């Protein structure tokens, strides 16, 4: 069910909220032991909230306005703080950490009446592209249980794809919403950097992270985005909506209405490793958009092939800083032997509490930031990031939106890419540059290849999420009517 379907069913009294929530909880009970999307299901609490809403609906006679999100179950990625509930970032080091406050986005959704149904599995500290790095076991792709759902928001994506919740929140630093959305056949949005508050999100790479929705439809992603966005005094990197809106009024949306929207296809994204069947999907989508009166032109992002290298220097650097706080002092796992010095307690706790990928990235980040190497690696990467950003700015002078593949392949098998970390890192090849440039990216399903979902990615100008939604809805409608 979509959010508006749920809303209509509730206000028309075709369905009670308790019946609705129970149906999701039953589905989870039936199927989640196979999929493992959730680390914890908050069943009793969800039913209690549903009961409260039902009382309000019963006594209402449609006099009071019931918000669009009231009674809608939502899954939360395990790195989002929800007061009074465990949030572990799928790590052993935070296994029993109970959040003392809620993230701003969680507060906003709660105020809108959403019902949080459980915390979703992820790669530990969001470090990964398959959810195989979870300290609590992998999540499986609902379309093929031998395959990964993608990552790091794999649990969130699987929960929506499996029908465990109509929507989920995830986070995206290099593709962690868009890639699992593509692998699971659903919609995923990474908002413009600064559009959504990161307060209460356990930070991975603070200059790249964004929280975003994973949903069944573009409209649902838009509904959730409009609620969670906005300036927050608790996150100094957020921008006032007025300033965001002034960008929206511009160019893209108006052009779309006048059918004058120009779409760019960056040639550097159509690389050797791209599955030809995925390229076909892009071509087909472009044909459709041309029929709708839009112009598609080839463009160039000359530094595109450097994006992954830049990402795998800048991101681990920030990760090594952000994970320094997990040190057995204020919270989390604490291994203290009487004879240990203070430093030994840090080393032992972190060794025991972090998984292999967390240690690897912390080591790499420490290296690129260390004296003697900082200039050659971190500084160089920062400068190259500027060139990548400039490429996008240049291209957006000629076109209004870019279309690219979301992933180089469909979902790979569990265990296929875990031996060599580099092969896993290559999954981010189409998505990471968008985070480096701070731009919005929307991943949406365009059918299947051999029974596995395929997604394409739309990239827009800063704060032009609305243009992505409008264009996304056109594409979505087309694929709903045609054979996959």
């Amino acid at each position: 069910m979509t959010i508006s379907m749920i809303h209509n069913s509730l206000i028309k009294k075709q369905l009670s909220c308790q019946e609705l929530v129970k149906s999701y909880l039953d589905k989870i009970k039936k199927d989640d032991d196979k999929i493992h999307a959730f680390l914890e299901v908050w069943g009793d609490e969800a039913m209690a909230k549903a009961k409260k809403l039902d009382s309000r609906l019963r006594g209402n006679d449609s006099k009071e306005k019931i918000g669009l999100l009231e009674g809608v179950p939502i899954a939360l990625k395990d790195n989002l703080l929800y007061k009074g509930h465990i949030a572990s970032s799928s790590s052993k080091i935070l296994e029993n950490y109970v959040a003392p406050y809620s993230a701003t986005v969680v507060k906003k959704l709660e105020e809108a009446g959403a019902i949080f149904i459980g915390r979703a599995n992820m790669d530990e500290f969001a470090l990964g592209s398959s959810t195989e790095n979870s300290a609590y076991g992998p999540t499986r792709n609902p379309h093929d249980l031998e395959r990964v759902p993608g990552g790091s928001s794999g649990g969130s994506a699987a929960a929506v794809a499996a029908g465990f919740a109509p929507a989920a929140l995830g986070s995206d630093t290099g593709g962690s919403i868009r890639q699992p959305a593509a692998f699971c056949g659903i919609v995923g949005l990474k908002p413009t950097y600064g559009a959504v508050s990161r307060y209460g999100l356990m930070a991975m790479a603070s200059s790249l992270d964004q929280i975003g929705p994973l949903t069944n439809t573009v409209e649902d992603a838009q509904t959730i985005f409009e609620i969670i966005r906005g300036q927050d005094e608790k996150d100094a990197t957020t921008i006032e909506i007025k300033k965001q809106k002034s960008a929206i009024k511009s160019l893209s949306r108006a052009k779309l209405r006048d059918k004058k929207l120009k779409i760019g296809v960056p040639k550097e994204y159509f690389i050797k490793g791209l599955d030809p069947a995925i390229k076909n999907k892009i071509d087909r989508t472009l044909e459709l958009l041309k029929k709708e009166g839009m112009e598609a032109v080839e463009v160039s992002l000359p530094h595109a092939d450097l994006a992954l290298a830049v990402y795998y220097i800048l991101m681990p650097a920030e990760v090594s800083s952000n994970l320094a706080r997990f040190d057995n002092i204020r919270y989390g796992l604490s291994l203290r032997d009487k004879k240990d010095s203070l430093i030994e307690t840090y080393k032992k706790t972190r060794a025991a509490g972090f998984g292999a990928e967390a240690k690897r990235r912390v080591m790499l980040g420490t290296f690129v930031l260390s004296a003697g190497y900082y200039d050659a690696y971190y500084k160089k990467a920062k400068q190259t990031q500027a060139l990548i950003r400039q490429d996008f700015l240049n291209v957006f002078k000629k076109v209004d939106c870019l279309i690219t593949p979301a992933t180089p392949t469909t979902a790979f098998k569990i265990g296929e890419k875990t031996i060599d970390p580099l092969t896993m890192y290559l999954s981010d090849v189409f998505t990471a540059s968008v985070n480096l440039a701070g731009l919005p990216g929307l991943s949406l399903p365009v059918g299947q290849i051999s029974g596995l979902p395929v997604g394409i990615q739309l990239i827009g100008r800063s704060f032009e999420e609305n243009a992505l939604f409008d264009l996304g809805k056109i594409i979505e409608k087309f694929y709903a009517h045609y054979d996959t």
Partner: protein
Amino acid sequence: MIKLARMTINSETIAHLAHLARLELSEAEKKKYQKDMLAILDFVASLQAVPTSELTTVETEQAHGEFRPDAALALPVEETKKIINLFPEKEGNLNKVKAVFE
């Protein structure tokens, strides 16, 4: 620079980085991370050839939010209690830790 990296990512470097990162690693882990890091650094080597200068800075179109006044804000007591409950070891309301200086 890459030759430099290859020469210096030896077991001593790994031990040093592990200490900086406050990680205790087994011998097997040290070997694995050394191998992984060399591979990753080889991969990012392509950046060395990119012409950049001191003047290449990141242009941000965004304005930043205003800073709030530099004043201490009191947390609600209930939230403070929750935070104190998370301390691995405590004495009253104080977080108990090992001595920083021996």
